[in-house]
């Protein structure tokens, strides 16, 4: 039966790791701007096209 407690401990550990990862990424500011990065991706394209032409 004790094996269940071990499994529970690990499953909780994994959940806590994910929560920690979420909080870390949030504190890091990854959710502050969810639209910008998609646009910034275009910026390099634009740079190339202007320098090439």
């Amino acid at each position, binding site marked *: *039966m004790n094996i*269940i*407690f071990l499994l529970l401990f690990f499953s909780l550990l994994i*959940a806590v790791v994910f929560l920690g990862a*979420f909080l870390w990424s*949030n504190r890091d500011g990854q959710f502050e701007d969810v*639209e*910008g990065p998609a646009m*910034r991706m*275009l910026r390099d394209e634009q740079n190339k096209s202007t320098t090439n032409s």
Partner: protein
Amino acid sequence: MQKCQFCEQPIDAGFKITRDGNDYCCTGCATADAMLGGSDQEGPSVKLIDRYSHLSLIDHKEGLDKINGNHWQWTIQLPGIHCTSCLILLERMGEWLPGVRDVRVAFSTKQAVVQFDPEMISVSRLAAWLDFVGYPPSIITQKKKATSEIAELGIAGFAMGNAMMSAFPEYFGLSEEANFQLLYFFRYSTAFFATISLMVAGKFYLINAFKAVRYRQWSLDIPIALGMLALWGWSAHLLFTGQSGGYFDSLSGLIFFLILGRFLQGRTYAAFSFERTVDDFLPISVFSLTRGEFVRLGDLKEGEEYQIPTEGIVPVKSTLMGKAELDYSFITGESELQQLDRDQTIFAGARNAGSTLIAKVLQAPTQSEVEGLWKSKDRETTGWVSESITATFTISVLIISFLATFVWWFINPDRAIEIGVSVLIIACPCALSLAAPFAYGTASKLLSDMGLYMKSGLGIEKLAAAQRFFWDKTGTLTERASSVNITELSESNKSVFRAMVGRSSHPVSRLLAQYLQEGPKATLSRWEEHVGKGIEAEFEGQTFALGSAQWLNTTGDQTVMAIEGHVVGGFGSEFSYRANLTELFQAISDLGGEHVLISGDHPRELPRNWSKYFEGKSHFNKSPQQKSSLVQGQKNAVFLGDGLNDVQAMESADLGIAVVENSMSYIPKSGGVLLANQLLELPAMIRYSRRVRSLVKWAYMLSLLYNLSGVALALFGALSPVVAAILMPLSSISVVLFVVLGARALR
């Protein structure tokens, strides 16, 4: 669909900018095209206005962080950000501005973080440059704590998931006989997660309830907090006495849904920035003549002499040290400039419309006053449900629970406390408080797709209740079809007219300012605005006039520019009524609406078939003050206006809606912004908001039904843990689903 010359995105007709014959979707694209297109590789040769010199003293309170000696970082709000080009242009700022090391734009929040070298570029120059390229910066005084909200949401979600998970085994028949240890492990871990959730995410409601009690206001937070505390306390009691696992799983679920609702409410609206009010123009510091340097407002001493540049805002009650011309429209709405003499008193909030003036501090501002100037008025009420209903609700819940305890004391004293507490728990108006935020949150998203950006869900309720529609004429009901004839103007004359229109906030002036473009402004020796007629000014002995043809005794163009009585240019700003307005009025009348027309202009004949809407209800020659007092006190009034001069009326009305053509940089204080090209959709929007309002009423009924049946069960002592555990999350989730799906379906 028309496409932007630069970014090739479809142009939102409301925000079209035309420059050099090309159409752009925003200033960012227009400027970026000019700068990146090779024509102007040097960047704009910056003839910058010194309106931002007061920024030289900002510090971390205004978003400036000094990382080290020559590495500073400034976080600012740029409401003008609109599309990808804006982002690209701003992030390449360093290529034109030496000293700027890095710029990072957060598109969703329209904020930018600029890293720069203070030795090479000053904050005021940065701000002036941003203004020049079309992004007048707003100083951030209160940092938004969106990050902590997201973190709370994450923790509450985590706690709810795990609490529910560890509560399941007991529902599925795990008993003390089967496995004593495991059962208690699960019970305690459920309790642990719920407690975390309550402490991290639920504290908001507890604190608010505490504040409400302290200030003796009834808010829905009180019964919610009571319910939460009762739920937690009773569950803990059950847990420690070994009777059952309590309702910890329900508690964590409730908290999660409550803060999710609160989060969505703020979220739907984040993208559209609103308030660029007088606060944004208030200086952070002024140049003190007494000390010969810039001084922060809080450090100003009584009797100190200081300067206010042109367009600057008077920060503190002062005495004039010379002649001045002041514009009090920000505070009083009075659009006429006031000519003041030496020794007269001037008040905070006035705009300097003349040249740089010198004043003496009459009353040194205290720190709280300075902060008060900056703090935007927070008029948003917390409650969706009116205070009287909340009060009745809370009081009756308390009375019922008290009576239940009292009565059960005689029937069965052992269960008396339990039943009293279960009434508190089950009556927690969680579903009730979820209904409106979720419904209006969904609705404001859908309305913004239609072209109406509501500031808060409360506005939707007001739009639904709207009975009287006050229409501002110029700019709202009319649109311009203009032809400009300024080719004969010499550069020096242009600079005079530029200075003339620069001081006026009349729509025609602002339009003309666009055609005259940026450039030097002459220093006028006299400037006078004649309401409904035009502007008269004097420069180097010559009289310049700009105004209606009738006023200047000529014919031809509607607005005429004249020097010494000779016509030198014209401006055919035919403000024609927008198309299909009659249908619009009729549709709103059909909805039970009444119309009133208010105009600051001289009386003009209205189209004949409008008379049935505006018979005896059209007002002309009204000052902003008069507009406001016409609206004041009217029940269910909506004011639709376009400009600065309507700000007061918009604030007086129950709901102010700004009808905007292409002004992204300045949107007056209003409850909502409506794109002018979507004006005809207004009746559909009203109908929709009415449907949502009745949906919310039905949701209230539904959740009250849940509450009542729950209370009934609790009163008779039939509220078993399983019933409560099912009933509580079910009521919340079903109400949320009901309003969200309903609000979408009603569209």
